[in-house]
């Protein structure tokens, strides 16, 4: 750690860990409900559980991105963060808005638009919060001595993510138009600007962990985010096949979204290539594991499993079934959840000065969570394909088909238990690091010497 103010990242990472554990609890509630055990229905009906599960996911990932930015931007621009008190205010207000939203879901205060369930008044607070965050980052960048590509790609990802939140805040009388703009948020986030954030954080981690020349890494970063937008913007069309929008989206969405996996493949090849070229001397093997798994699993979840249902002829049958849930889990896990876990694994030893870099618990956490998640995705896949055949091809009534799917949810729960064990170990490991200390300044700087091949 180079600067005192980087420690602020810890708050955001700790919040991420807390929300992730809650998210998993709600996942179990829903999995049991799918099996027919919905004893909590009176207090937590499925629609409250689902809103909570999805929004906790989005908030813990965004909290992780913010922590990452607070850690990376001072380092990359060679300057203390502009204002630590402002960052603290921003942190507490984020946490409070999050808590109010979650409580609101349980008393039926929501907006009912998938992933954007947070009610309108809270949306304004979220927007304000993000503006404060961005001002802090931008002023730091402006005052800094260096302006690296990595820092700019990360920051522009964050700015555009904030801008794209706005179309989701407008009320439209026509449900189709409402959906149309909901995708400007959801799709253009995960298959657009969040990939800038992902590319920025991955580059930073690769520069630090492999010691490969910055110029080489950043050149490929441009190529990858170039591919992202080339395919991802018009790829939004894969959500415009069957919602009351014109037929030309079947062609445009089909072609361009089928090219989206290229950007994710780019990330995979990029990370593996840099790892192979690198000097492999960095002692933080866990951070390296998570960095590489992000690059690989994002391709499997977003790229391959996305491709599996993105062509209009397939999507006609899989649209809005458990096949979508299969893809949603591995894509979010591989691309964004793992990314946040990677930057946490990298930064914790540097912030706290504790060198428990390569411990057994950390490795168990890594393998159990990944294996568990792959098992969960397999269970969703089996359930989803069976659902498609029964409901969409044979015309079996929805509920009758669902009853046949219960065994798959039993498997889901088994795999989810493995997954949750992994995450528990990760969080225990996180807690074992303790809190960041000023004495940790200068920690890890000895590795800076490794950074020229």
């Amino acid at each position, binding site marked *: 750690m180079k600067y005192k103010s980087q420690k602020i990242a810890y708050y955001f990472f700790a919040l991420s860990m807390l929300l992730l554990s809650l998210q998993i609890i709600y996942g179990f509630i829903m999995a049991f409900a799918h099996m027919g055990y919905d004893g909590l229905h009176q207090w937590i009906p*499925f629609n409250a559980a689902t809103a909570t599960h999805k929004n906790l996911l989005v908030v813990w990932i965004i909290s992780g991105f913010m922590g990452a930015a607070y850690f990376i931007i001072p380092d990359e621009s060679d300057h203390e963060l502009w204002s630590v008190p402002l960052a603290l205010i921003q942190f507490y207000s984020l946490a409070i808005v999050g808590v109010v939203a979650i409580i609101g879901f349980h008393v039926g205060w929501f907006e*009912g*638009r*998938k992933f954007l369930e947070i009610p309108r008044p809270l949306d304004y607070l979220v927007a304000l919060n993000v503006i404060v965050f961005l001002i802090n980052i931008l002023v730091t960048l402006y005052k800094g001595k260096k302006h690296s590509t990595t820092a700019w790609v990360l920051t522009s990802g964050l700015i555009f993510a904030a801008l794209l939140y706005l179309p989701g805040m407008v009320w439209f*009388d026509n449900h189709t138009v409402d959906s149309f703009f909901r995708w400007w948020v959801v799709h253009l986030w995960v298959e657009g600007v969040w990939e800038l954030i992902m590319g920025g954080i991955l580059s930073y981690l690769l520069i630090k962990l492999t010691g490969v020349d910055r110029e080489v890494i950043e050149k490929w970063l441009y190529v990858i985010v170039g591919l992202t937008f080339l395919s991802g913007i018009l790829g939004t069309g894969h959500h415009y096949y069957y919602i009351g929008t*014109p037929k030309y989206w079947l062609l445009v969405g089909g072609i361009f979204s089928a090219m989206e996996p290229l950007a994710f493949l780019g990330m995979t090849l990029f990370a593996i290539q840099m790892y192979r070229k690198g000097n492999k001397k960095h002692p933080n093997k866990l951070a390296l594991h998570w960095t590489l798994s992000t690059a690989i699993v994002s391709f499997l979840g977003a790229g391959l499993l996305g491709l599996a249902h993105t062509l209009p002829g397939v999507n*006609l049958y899989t649209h809005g079934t458990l096949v979508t849930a299969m893809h949603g889990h591995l894509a979010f896990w591989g691309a964004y959840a793992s990314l946040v876990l990677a930057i946490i694994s990298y930064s914790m030893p540097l912030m706290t000065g504790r060198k428990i870099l390569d411990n057994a618990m950390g490795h168990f956490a890594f393998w159990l969570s990944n294996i568990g998640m792959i098992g969960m995705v397999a269970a969703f896949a089996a359930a989803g394909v069976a659902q498609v055949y029964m409901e*969409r091809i044979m015309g079996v009534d929805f509920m009758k088909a*669902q009853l046949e799917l219960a065994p798959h949810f039993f498997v889901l729960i088994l795999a989810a238990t493995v997954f949750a064990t992994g995450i528990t170990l990760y969080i225990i490991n996180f807690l074992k690091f303790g809190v960041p200390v000023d004495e940790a300044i200068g920690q890890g700087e000895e590795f800076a010497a490794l950074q020229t091949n």
Partner: protein
Amino acid sequence: MLSKKQAKLFFLGGTAIFFLIFVGMTVDTLVNHVPRQTHAENITQQVRMGRHLWDANNCMGCHTIMGEGAYYAPELTKVYERRGADYIKAVFNFPGGWRPHGRHMVEYNFTEEEKDALVAFFKWVDEADLNGFPPKPSLSLDR
């Protein structure tokens, strides 16, 4: 080999071009197609109220509509055609919550006006041209 500068140009140029195309297509979609395909002229005050109720109660947190939502409860795009107004109106205020095949629906307390509004919303959704979604079962056994 590609230089960093060329790579940057590829990124900025590509993004700008495709974003402009996307905005153009958006305008065409919303101005020339969606109003016709979704019969925007039929969005009455009642339909609007129905959609408001749909949103405020997060019905999408269990059901899908136009294939979007959660996968706990049935797809409702064609529910108006499948079940009819009376059936739909009966499920909302069911004492203890509607419980088909052991899955729980929330017990609501809707007025007659609100129930009619939801039915009107479903009717509007039912009539929209969704390019063939939901698909007709090719091996139909049930019906």
